């Protein structure tokens, strides 16, 4: 039974969804704009007899996640951009040792200490495997408080299914705003997959050795190849996106998270004015919905990527559509950065200008 909607901050909804998904252990470190999430976990994890530690650093928090998950627990950490940079060490190890866990990045503006206002400048870091080595992990981008809760809940299951870290890539706006949210029901223990491979499980019939270290180059190559086969399976099974009024659109916004919300407003305003705009919103940033975008390009669509950055996702969009339709599909970009959220009006004005230019 779906619960009644309640009014929650994005950061708190993420925390509650994690608890309902059976998060056994949370490790965090203070950083704005995600502090409500750590505080929510401090209260509610401890109240329910679970593990909460305010770590000495982001680096340590991520290795605590690595340890707790290696020992069979559903583990999670959250932070914002500069803190996520620090976590990259442990994320690379978790990817190399096939350790499931959930990571939340409530992005703020960079580079460096940057600012604390919402931004989308960590797209490259999140989707390219932000640490060292050849790897990817799943990246989910919520557009609302509801979706932040839903995707966090889903992230735990995906992490277990694919044995990899799953990142929820939100931003300061999603984290800080309040919206109505209907929370998913608490996961029943029987719905949780077993982890016979975990240290101390006693269930694999052999010694369980968690490690990302393989010194024989051919053996390491083979293990990476096998991980890439899994990546291909994930791309096939779990690419997710939303389309709004794309079918007859003369121009399609491509945007995720907060910038997609802005574009949705622009689409609605345009439609009221008789202008045919649409929105394509990737929900999985990795795997990126390249195939669908390519087929839209073949169908003759032109695209305007909108991001709260100087243009990062737009590169994936160009890779997706270049070569489709026998040539490069028209892709334009508009972005604000530094923590500035674009307005519906300015996004709509850019779209109108492009359509005028081409007509």
């Amino acid at each position: 039974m779906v619960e009644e909607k309640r009014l929650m901050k994005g950061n708190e909804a993420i925390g509650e969804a994690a608890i309902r998904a059976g998060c056994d252990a949370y490790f965090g470190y203070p950083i704005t704009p995600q502090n409500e999430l750590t505080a929510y976990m401090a209260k509610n994890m401890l109240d329910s007899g679970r593990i909460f530690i305010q770590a000495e650093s982001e680096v340590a928090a991520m290795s605590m996640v690595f340890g707790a998950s290696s020992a069979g627990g559903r583990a999670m950490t959250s932070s914002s951009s500069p803190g996520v940079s620090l976590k990259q060490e442990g994320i690379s190890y978790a990817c190399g040792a096939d350790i499931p866990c959930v990571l939340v990045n409530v992005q703020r503006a960079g580079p460096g200490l940057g600012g604390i206002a919402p931004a989308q400048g960590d797209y490259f870091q999140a989707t390219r495997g932000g640490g060292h080595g050849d790897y990817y992990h799943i990246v989910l981008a919520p557009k609302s408080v509801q979706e932040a809760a839903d995707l966090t809940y889903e992230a735990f299951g995906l992490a277990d299914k694919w044995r990899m870290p799953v990142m929820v890539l939100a931003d300061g706006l999603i984290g800080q705003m309040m919206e109505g949210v209907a929370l998913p029901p608490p996961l029943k223990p029987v719905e949780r997959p077993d982890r016979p491979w975990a240290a101390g499980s006693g269930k694999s019939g052999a010694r369980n050795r968690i490690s990302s270290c393989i010194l024989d180059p051919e053996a390491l190559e083979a293990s990476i190849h096998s991980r890439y086969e899994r990546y291909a399976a994930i791309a096939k099974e779990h690419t997710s996106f939303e389309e709004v009024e794309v079918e007859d659109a003369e121009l399609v916004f491509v945007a995720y998270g907060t910038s997609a919300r802005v574009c949705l407003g622009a689409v609605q305003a345009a439609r009221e004015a008789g202008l045919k705009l649409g929105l394509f919103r990737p929900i999985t940033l990795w795997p990126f919905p390249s195939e669908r975008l390519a087929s839209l390009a073949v169908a003759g669509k032109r695209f305007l990527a909108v991001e709260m950055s100087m243009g990062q996702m737009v590169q994936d969009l160009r890779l997706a559509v270049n070569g489709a339709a026998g040539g490069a599909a028209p892709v334009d970009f508009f972005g604000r950065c530094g923590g500035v959220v674009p307005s519906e009006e300015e996004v709509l004005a850019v779209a109108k200008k492009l359509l005028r230019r081409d007509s």
Partner: protein
Amino acid sequence: MELRYGHPKSLVSVQSKYCPGCGHGVIHRLVAEVVDELGVQEKSILLNPVGCAIWADLYFDMDTVQVPHGRTPAAATGIKRMRPDHLVICYQGDGDLAAIGTAETVHAANRGEKFTTIFVNNAIYGMTGGQMAPTTLVGQKATTAPYGRDPGAAGMGYPIRVCEMLATLEGTKYLARGSVDNAVNVRKTKQYIKRAFEAQLRGEGFGLVEILSPCPTNWQMSPTAAVDWLASDMIPYYRLGEIKNELSTREEAAL
């Protein structure tokens, strides 16, 4: 006839990759013997660090977790919190524990995490080929201190006495320093390890056993010269014994 000395059950029977005269083999054996004596092999998890002891997962017959350099105490925290009924052994060298992982060590100790750290102090980086460690003695040569560690003009700092540093923290309950340079010290070291493991199984606070250990290869000495140097140069600086014992059993005869 009674068998008094055999291969420990908790160690795999393979030839090790450790150099001739290295202390890791003896220390591995001591840890394994204590695990056997306590009957907890199937309830033990060992963290093998970055450094020479990364090989530990080839040798210990128990579940193992290999973690980023220096993060061993952070990962051990996660493991022990998840599996409080297991014996969690955090095996670390001096670079891992006292340089790149200082923050993790201090804070795990300060939280009173209920795992045991086996801290192998050989005053050098072994795996990477003999660089200066935080525990390198003043004047001791290393590839990154070619004229010897110089805390003065070269600003290389002083060797860190880890047990004494951690002793000020409320969360630490048992801190002992042993050595594997001779049979007497080997036996005492085994007792320290046993006390620390027993304390962990009773759920008492943070315990650490530091073990002075020879590294002939990177000290550029013969194995016998290395144990002699350990006794003549390391032990006077790194005092052996129980540096802090606040265990519930401390009334037992002191070693």
